[in-house]
């Protein structure tokens, strides 16, 4: 959820770069709408409750929590071509600023994949993960 708020906070910059945003989640519409209202999101959230799109895009995790989407960010251009892709693990996600800067910079092909350094948990992520384990136990907290 924090990730959605990051894109909300960058909305001016995203609009300035000539792009739009949409979230995709396997939650039912009522829950997605509650999140959208709670966070005050101006962009739509699409509800893949049948898991059809996350399966077709191969980012479905059937083993977890009854089947959820792997966190991932794509930039799709007007020809429906993928210009940027980042399949993220739980602890570390591609920063919203990286995605927006990519678009603002003209979507250069050499920056089209999230750099490996974004995938490697840094000290801050390690500390945050440790703190979460202490607070919540080994079960991951809600976003």
């Amino acid at each position, binding site marked *: 959820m924090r990730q959605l708020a990051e894109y909300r906070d960058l909305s001016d910059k995203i609009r300035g770069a000539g792009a*739009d945003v949409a979230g995709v989640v396997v939650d039912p519409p009522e829950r*997605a709408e509650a999140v959208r209202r709670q966070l005050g999101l101006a962009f739509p959230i699409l509800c893949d409750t049948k898991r059809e799109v996350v399966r077709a895009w191969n980012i479905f995790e059937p083993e977890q929590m009854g089947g959820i989407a792997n966190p991932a960010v794509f930039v*799709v251009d007007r*020809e429906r071509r993928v210009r940027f892709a980042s399949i993220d693990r739980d602890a570390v996600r591609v920063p919203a600023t990286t995605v927006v800067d990519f678009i603002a910079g003209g979507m250069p092909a050499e920056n*089209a994949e999230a750099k490996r350094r974004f995938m490697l948990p840094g000290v801050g992520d390690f500390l945050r993960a440790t703190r979460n384990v202490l607070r919540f136990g080994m079960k991951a907290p809600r976003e």
Partner: protein
Amino acid sequence: MNDGKTPGVGEIAPAFELPDSTGTPRRLSGLVAAAPRILIFYRGHW
């Protein structure tokens, strides 16, 4: 199970139509018709 392949950079994203949180059907082609679209797949409720 996953039955597809993650679209890579440079590839055409598979078309889809999904309802948004208000129930309005949304097609990927419509979502990107006016401008590039950042698609954020997030985990949602655990």
